[in-house]
């Protein structure tokens, strides 16, 4: 990973923790979290509900104070600054639009609070209305517009004061699938056009992969891995990350032998079987005897014969997904394994349930997880 200089970092989270309650019922919503979020970055906090991603967002926004640790915005300590003194705006999951104000009044609210001159406010509001395509509805009350429109007003309202950082708390979760896909593209466009740092919270891995420059995967109040979408997808360091993002196969295997050298390679044997695999061994793994091997379903191929195959398995189920088909197999050691194949017209390969098939996997696609 490349070192980033301080000037490029918008938000610096340094050993931050947030505990709720007292000892017997102490909840560690966040525990010793550190990240650097770069300027102009679309950064996503991804994790299941209760992983602490929204808590981290609320700490950056200033709605809560951390139990310990430090948060810097442009190298200035903002840990205990109230929200109205931070150049950080939030798009709320519930939108939280002001129902007694019109669309335009909602958007101008932050600018008025910053005591901007009248003509500048009017100009910025017009710009924002144009940016989110809401010019015609500017005099409507916020309860007279649809959910997707409310979403765009919430975005415009948060963007209008031109904050250093924009926080987005699962803003698309209330929209239906089509609208959500449209808004994903819209959000990415807005981020590129405004050049503002976006910190986006979601539990939807697909959303995270399509929009983000970098993703932090969170679980249980910790950050497990930070990286680009393809880095997270192709090189998950831990089982949780591999499992949470995309579909994954996990096989338990014994380490038979380890080759010497800078990148130690291990020969693995499937537990309870004679089939062997080879993969790069992570640095901290040398002492263990067994390992969890991770393979993406689309990185494996099926063939009718076992010749030249990495492993063999018995076909137990076939699931059709339109673009792809998932073949569920049972391996010799009883582990289940899924192979995903893209559907083509006139494909000759048509196995039936109960067949024994060969599974071909490239060596680079086999990874040993740190656990």
């Amino acid at each position, binding site marked *: 990973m490349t070192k980033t200089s301080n000037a490029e970092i918008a938000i610096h989270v340094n050993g931050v923790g947030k505990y709720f309650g007292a000892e017997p019922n102490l909840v560690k919503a966040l525990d010793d979290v550190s990240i650097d979020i770069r300027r102009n970055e679309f950064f996503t906090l991804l994790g299941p509900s209760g992983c602490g991603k929204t808590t981290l967002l609320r700490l950056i*926004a*200033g*709605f809560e104070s951390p139990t310990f640790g430090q948060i810097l915005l442009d190298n200035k300590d903002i840990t205990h600054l*109230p*929200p*109205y*003194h931070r150049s*950080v*705006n*939030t798009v*709320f999951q*519930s939108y*939280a*639009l*002001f*129902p*007694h104000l019109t669309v335009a009044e909602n958007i101008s*609210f*932050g600018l008025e*609070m*910053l005591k901007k001159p009248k003509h500048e406010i009017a100009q910025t509001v017009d710009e924002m209305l144009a940016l989110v395509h809401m010019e015609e509805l500017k005099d409507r*009350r916020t*309860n007279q517009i649809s959910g997707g429109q409310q979403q765009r007003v919430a975005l415009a*309202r*948060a963007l209008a*004061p031109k904050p250093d950082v924009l926080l987005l708390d699962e803003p698309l979760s209330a929209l239906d699938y089509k609208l959500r896909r449209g808004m994903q593209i819209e959000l990415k466009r807005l981020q590129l056009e405004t050049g503002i740092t976006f910190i986006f919270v979601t539990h939807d891995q697909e959303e995270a992969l399509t929009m983000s420059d970098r993703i932090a995967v969170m679980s249980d109040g910790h950050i497990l891995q930070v990286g680009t979408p393809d880095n997270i997808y192709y090189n998950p360091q831990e089982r949780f990350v591999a499992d949470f993002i995309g579909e994954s196969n996990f096989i338990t295997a014994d380490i038979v032998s380890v080759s010497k050298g800078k990148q130690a390679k291990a020969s693995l044997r499937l537990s309870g079987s004679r089939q062997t695999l080879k993969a790069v061994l992570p640095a901290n793994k040398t002492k263990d005897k067994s390992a969890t091997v991770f393979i993406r379903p689309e990185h494996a191929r099926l063939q009718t014969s076992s010749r030249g195959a990495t492993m063999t398995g018995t076909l137990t189920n076939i699931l059709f997904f339109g673009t792809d088909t998932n073949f569920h197999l049972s391996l010799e050691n009883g582990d289940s394994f899924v192979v995903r194949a893209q559907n083509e017209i006139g494909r000759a390969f048509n196995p039936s349930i109960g067949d024994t098939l060969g599974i071909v996997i490239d060596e680079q696609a086999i990874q040993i997880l740190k656990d």
Partner: protein
Amino acid sequence: MLNRIFQKKNEFSITHQFGFATIALICFFTLYAPITILVFYSFNAGNNLMLWEGFSFHWYVEASKNELVQEAAIRSVVIAVCASLISTLVATMAALGTTRTRSFRGQKFIFIMINQPLMVPEIVTAVALLIFFAIIKTFTNYYGLGYLIVAHAAFCVPFAYLPIKARLDGMDLSMEIAASDLYAPPLVVFRRITLPLLFPGIMAGAMLAFVISLDDVIITEFVKTAGQDTLPTYMLGQLRRVITPEINAISTVLLAVSLVVVTVFFLFTRKRY
């Protein structure tokens, strides 16, 4: 299919239970028949309370010409306006104090304290106030309307408090948080967001307090000094003398005023924003 299910469900509806309609009718009859008769006889031309002698506005004209009625009516309105203003202000602060704070020890207790007038028998409060104000009167020599206003304001507080608190409970903090996120310091958040959103609740509380104050008899009767009759106590006094349909006419006007105010109250409680 779906319709069938709902039809089935209707058979379990309470309205199909035996005797339900009868009981409901009896209840409504006892509630509204006397009022209907009262209103009806307020238009009686003759001076008998029970004997219909033709339609006329005679008693309305009589009542409006009666100086005692005029004074009592003005006094009633002055007291009700002042009492509802004071009690609504107090109730708004109390509602904010019991909802827009971190939960604290004794919150339930304070809630009960605020709603005390709903639970303590009014006659007890009346006697207590009589004695309490008697002491103050001997010290201050003040005998004005202030006592009545303070007494009314006190027992109106819970009536103003309940609709305001109900509205605050229904308003989550997200608007206020969003405003502070948009650079509004706490006082500005209160003025620009909390207060406008709460306004319908405050108006509803004021309306309710106004009506409650307007028709109070017991506490007024005990607290008032000579010549401080409100409309209800004036009417009570009249009962001891000759009863004419004038009292029907006054009652009908009071009823009309209450109906209007209560309607406004409902409009405010239903108003979303």
